[in-house]
């Protein structure tokens, strides 16, 4: 068990592209930590740098109290589960799980006993003699986990281990993974591009873009209070509606429409001059729709209706701007009908011209 600490860590590729840019980060002992971001955001580079598979250009990296910046990956006592699992195709399940112990020169009988024990704990009974090609995707993923567990590491590193599974299996494996991590209590860093996965699994999430952390916080933080428009757009199964506009007389103006300012930024924004460019953000789940006029609501024609299962995603046009609302499945509007949308002012957000969230009490915190 160990914490992980990076100090001003930079990984620069030949040609000057920075995979990780001056990054300082603390991961607590026993924490389930997710690195979330689009492809090319540097999340995998950071993970591989922690593993030692990428060299560090500048800065320091600690695992526990050890400075491992220049340490060989094989001596960091970390275990990694790869996206393709990296199970050795010529070895049986038992040989695969026992391989880390073989490298550590554990006695043969001992290592197969450990392998069997680990396999049992991960419900792999009866599969010990099979080759990877004879296993299903879910089983392969569990063998890769078992191999990582058997090496008894200080840190687990997961590189999108669920992305090769089909949707149904992925949910199952997700729950399994969370249980396993709770039980073992091993510090875990998990890379994913799937925000739902990160929200579901992690104790804390670092959302990355361009080699930097855009926001660091609990799933609740990043969902409720995204630090900037990038995070706001990235998190949530239905993307947040972001409306560019201006401040006008203590209200938010876009086109002909006016909206009340969000509660959390009302005081700050009211103090700013009219015409200041801002972005108004509201999650479709927090916008209510009605067919009758209501005070503060904006009216527009329904353009698209998408079925999400128990609910509907309704897109309403205001000039060129589409605003989306999630409504109950019983309230399906006609295409072209005029509806009234009213965002919940306690859940709506306001971002300044740079895209940073505005809040009355504390300035939004970007990065960690």
């Amino acid at each position: 068990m160990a914490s992980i600490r990076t100090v001003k860590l930079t990984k620069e590729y030949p040609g000057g592209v920075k995979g990780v840019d001056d990054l300082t980060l603390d991961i607590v002992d026993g924490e389930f930590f997710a690195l979330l971001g689009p492809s090319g955001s540097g999340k995998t580079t950071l993970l591989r740098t922690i593993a030692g598979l990428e060299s560090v250009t500048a800065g320091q990296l600690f695992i526990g109290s050890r400075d491992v910046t220049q340490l060989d990956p094989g001596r960091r006592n970390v275990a990694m589960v790869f996206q393709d699992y990296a199970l050795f195709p010529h070895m049986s399940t038992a040989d695969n799980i026992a391989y880390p112990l073989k490298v550590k020169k554990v006695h043969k009988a001992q290592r197969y006993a450990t392998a069997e024990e680990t396999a049992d704990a991960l419900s792999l009974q009866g599969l010990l003699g099979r080759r990877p090609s004879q296993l299903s995707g879910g089983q392969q993923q569990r063998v890769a986990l078992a191999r990582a567990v058997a090496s008894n590491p200080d840190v687990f590193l997961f590189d999108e281990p669920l992305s090769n599974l089909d949707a149904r299996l992925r949910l199952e494996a997700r729950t399994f993974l969370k249980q396993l991590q709770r039980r073992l209590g091993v510090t875990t860093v998990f890379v994913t591009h799937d925000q739902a996965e990160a929200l579901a699994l992690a104790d804390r999430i670092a959302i990355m873009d361009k080699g930097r952390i855009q926001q660091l916080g609990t799933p609740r933080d990043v969902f409720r209070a995204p630090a900037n428009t990038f995070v706001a757009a990235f998190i949530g199964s239905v993307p947040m509606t972001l409306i560019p506009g201006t401040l006008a007389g203590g209200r938010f103006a876009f086109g002909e429409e006016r909206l009340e300012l969000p509660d959390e930024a009302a005081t700050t924004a009211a103090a700013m001059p009219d015409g200041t460019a801002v972005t108004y953000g509201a999650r479709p789940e927090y916008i209510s729709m009605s067919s009758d006029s209501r005070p503060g609501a904006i009216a527009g024609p329904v353009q698209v209706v998408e079925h999400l299962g128990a609910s509907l995603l309704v897109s309403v046009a205001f000039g060129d701007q589409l605003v989306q609302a999630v409504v109950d499945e019983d309230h399906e509007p006609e295409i072209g009908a005029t509806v009234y949308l009213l965002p919940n002012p306690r859940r709506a957000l306001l971002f300044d011209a740079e895209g940073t969230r505005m809040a009355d009490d504390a300035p939004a915190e970007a990065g960690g």
Partner: protein
Amino acid sequence: MKHDDGDVAGLGRPRAVAFALPALAIIGVFLFLPALWTLWLGLTNYRLTGTAAAHPKVVWFDNYRTALTDHEFRGALWRTTLFVIGSALIGQSLFGFSLAWVLQRVRKPIRSVVEFFVLLAWIVPSSVSSFLWFALYDRRNGTLNALLGTKGTAWLIQYPMWSIVVFNTWVGTAFSMLLYRSALGSVPPSQLESARLAGAGPGAQLRDVIFPHIRSHILTNTLLITLWTFNVFTPYLLTGPANRKAEIMAGYIYRTSLRVGELGQGAAISLIMIVINLIIALVYLRVLRERTP
């Protein structure tokens, strides 16, 4: 930087060099060195035996002058050219392509049998295949004379060039057949379909769809079999050392340098051959590079 990118096993440059060294050393000593040595040997009057063996003298370009004015060398080069044109460019290419083309349209068992025998000719060790043809061409008991009713024809003596051209076509057709088979397989069926729907007959299909598509394969095949045929030693096994009328470059070098013992002269001819090889190979590698950018 501690690790190179892509160096996934943490080999490191020094160890990588150490790994590569044994192979590179063997290639360096037994492939590069001989090639460089020809440059030097070709400038001397080195001989296998006698005084010039112990104390070779530098004769500069005498060997090259001798070679280029020697009618035996020019004869061997001319015969080699005919041999390459006859057995590789015409024989192997034509047979190989026709086989690949026709066998597409033949039932599987027949196709497998034909392919088996074509490949067999290619695989049988060269000293066996040359004996098989030696027997086939035999003047008194040869199967060829029995079959054609040409009793008493000494094919290897009366028609030496024809004999080795046919022999080498027989040996080498398999490669062209395999290459053209995979080339024809890579022509998208949809293009043939649409040509056929537009009313194109087999000739028009070949000209308009297939040849443009496999042009690079044709080039590759032509250059490779040219290179190999130019260097092939096997006809010597069939014709033997005495038959000068079928002597091609390989046999000529062997006779000059190792039988007569004029190593310096032989080296000069070797170099001429290596230069010709180099030209063919460079053209080939250029074509290859254009194909895979």
